[in-house]
């Protein structure tokens, strides 16, 4: 090492989030929200949109200059869509960072333990066997399927290898996911008339977003993100390994359970209202690791901000690239994510299970 020791003695403290980056992430989020509100088949300028948004905030009295139709477009069509994309993006990004920390695996994502397969099964069952309108039963059924999937993976992993070994837990997740995917395919084949609906749900999207979905997902996303953000230092402690984290006084199995439950509940809620949108949980945390810092004190809170902005922007792409038709957003994230995954794989020295 040729590097000389610096002259002044550096401060002994953890880096946390560099102030500039918080501002940058906030700007990114707000910018994408405004862009998402402004872009669509009906042209409405950014000024009137900002006015309309302010007018809808409680306790503020500003008169919107939009016509009732324009106001409905902004407030009933675009706003819920943009806000829902933000919630889902933030949740998936934060849950991804939590899974990567808990399993010390840079390629772990929120779907690692079977959330996706479980939600897929739940949604398929709801679409195939109930005549309820899709907005009502489907999210609940997908949510239930997702939590049952991860719960089964956790119980299986524990019974085989104890929660001490993360490898067993991941393999248990693979097993449960395979089983639930098989069940989902079976149901799907039984009811081929619903194939189209199932398929479009699986690919994910915000085309049918309304405030109803926003209020459905928001409490779970808020609670789950709060728990994970509060654990940001604990995630750094876990990075030294299970045994050492334990010898530093952490109850590793319990911490892992906390974080997996929080990330799962949040992810399940996100998936329930948006379908299966992959790669967000990998792209966002890793970009932050590359450009800001690998400490979870930075990765977790910045993922929350940047994840929301990222998915709002991706949704803008999904609805404008082939306008007037819409691309499924899951396809767009996969197009962006797969090459990114390859880069992470190449730059990561060792990937243990």
């Amino acid at each position: 090492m040729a590097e000389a020791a610096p002259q002044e003695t550096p401060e002994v403290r953890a880096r946390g989030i560099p102030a500039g980056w918080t501002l940058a992430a906030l700007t990114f989020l707000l910018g994408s929200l405004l862009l998402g509100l402004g872009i669509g088949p009906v042209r409405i300028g950014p000024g009137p949109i900002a006015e309309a948004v302010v007018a809808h905030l409680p306790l503020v009295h500003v008169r919107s200059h939009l016509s009732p139709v324009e106001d409905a477009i902004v407030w009933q069509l675009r706003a819920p869509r943009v806000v829902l994309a933000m919630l889902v993006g933030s949740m998936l990004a934060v849950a991804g960072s939590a899974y990567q920390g808990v399993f010390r695996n840079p390629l772990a994502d929120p779907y690692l333990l079977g959330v996706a397969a479980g939600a897929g099964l739940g949604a398929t069952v709801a679409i195939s066997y109930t005549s309820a309108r899709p907005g009502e039963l489907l999210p609940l059924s997908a949510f239930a399927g997702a939590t049952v999937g991860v719960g089964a993976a956790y119980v299986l992993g524990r019974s085989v290898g104890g929660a001490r070994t993360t490898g067993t837990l991941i393999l248990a997740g693979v097993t449960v996911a395979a089983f639930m995917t098989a069940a989902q395919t079976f149901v799907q084949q039984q009811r081929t008339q619903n194939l189209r609906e199932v398929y479009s749900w699986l690919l994910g999207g915000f085309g049918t977003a309304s405030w109803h979905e926003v209020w459905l997902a928001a409490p779970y996303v808020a609670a789950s993100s709060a728990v994970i953000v509060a654990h940001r230092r604990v995630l750094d402690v876990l990075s030294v390994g299970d045994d050492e984290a334990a010898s530093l006084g952490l109850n590793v199995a319990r911490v892992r359970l906390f974080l997996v439950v929080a990330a799962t509940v949040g992810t399940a809620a996100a998936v329930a209202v948006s379908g299966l949108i992959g790669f967000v949980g990998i792209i966002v945390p890793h970009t932050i690791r590359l450009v800001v810092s690998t400490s979870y004190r930075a990765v977790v809170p910045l993922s929350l901000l940047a994840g929301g902005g990222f998915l709002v922007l991706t949704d803008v792409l999904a609805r404008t690239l082939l306008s007037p038709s819409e691309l499924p957003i899951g396809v767009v994230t996969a197009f962006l994510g797969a090459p990114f995954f390859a880069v992470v794989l190449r730059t990561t020295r060792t990937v243990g299970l």
Partner: protein
Amino acid sequence: MTVAVQLREVSVILGKQRVLCETSLQVEHAEWLGLIGPNGAGKTTLLRAVNGLVPFSGSILVEGREVASSKRRELAQRVALLPQATRTPPELTVAEYVLLGRTPHIGYLATEGRTDRSAAEQALEQLALRPFAARPLWSLSGGELQRAVLARALAQEARILLLDEPTSALDLGRQQQVLELVDDLRRDSGLTVISAMHDLSLAGQYVDRLLLLDRGRVVAEGSANDVLSEASIAAFYGAKVRVIRENGGVLVLPQRVEYRCAR
């Protein structure tokens, strides 16, 4: 002298294997006990048991309190363990890594306060790492990294230090440096040290007392002079050595065995 660590008939069973068999021992406050023995003798398991990382039967008292019924956090305030292969996240800075040692003193979801930062700073000073505080771990040499790991254990402010092969990855000079450091720290801060060691000559030079383990049992205990003999090393390590005793020290020199075909 007060007792720092006491084991009474401690057994550990991992899988179906009995790794430690009814081991009893006592370590005085500020004593340095060296654990020696062939691979698989149970040295690491003994250290892990004292730190409550493996289930055991019998009783282990750390400063008079039962390990089995202690809370992880309270135990961590009294005992620090440096495992053989430590995971050092390459992108963390030395300061961040050493601050992790403060975990047992920080509320579960809290962040470091001023006392934590000054404890970490003091640990860095003691190991001459103060100028390295802002450097990422990947940029350190092997010896510097080992010092950072020790600094983390010091920042933990535990009075009992468990070291599993603290020098196995280091060259001869670094081995001596690290062991001298441990010895200084022990004298300055009154630490009790239990270390598993492979190099018998080095072990003999630093520790107060040696404990020879074989297949989970204590087979010899005492000063280096008592424990290290050609016969015992041949019996338990299956190694041919010459043991040279001079100036009160004991040197163990491996000898080449000539194999002949028996015909």
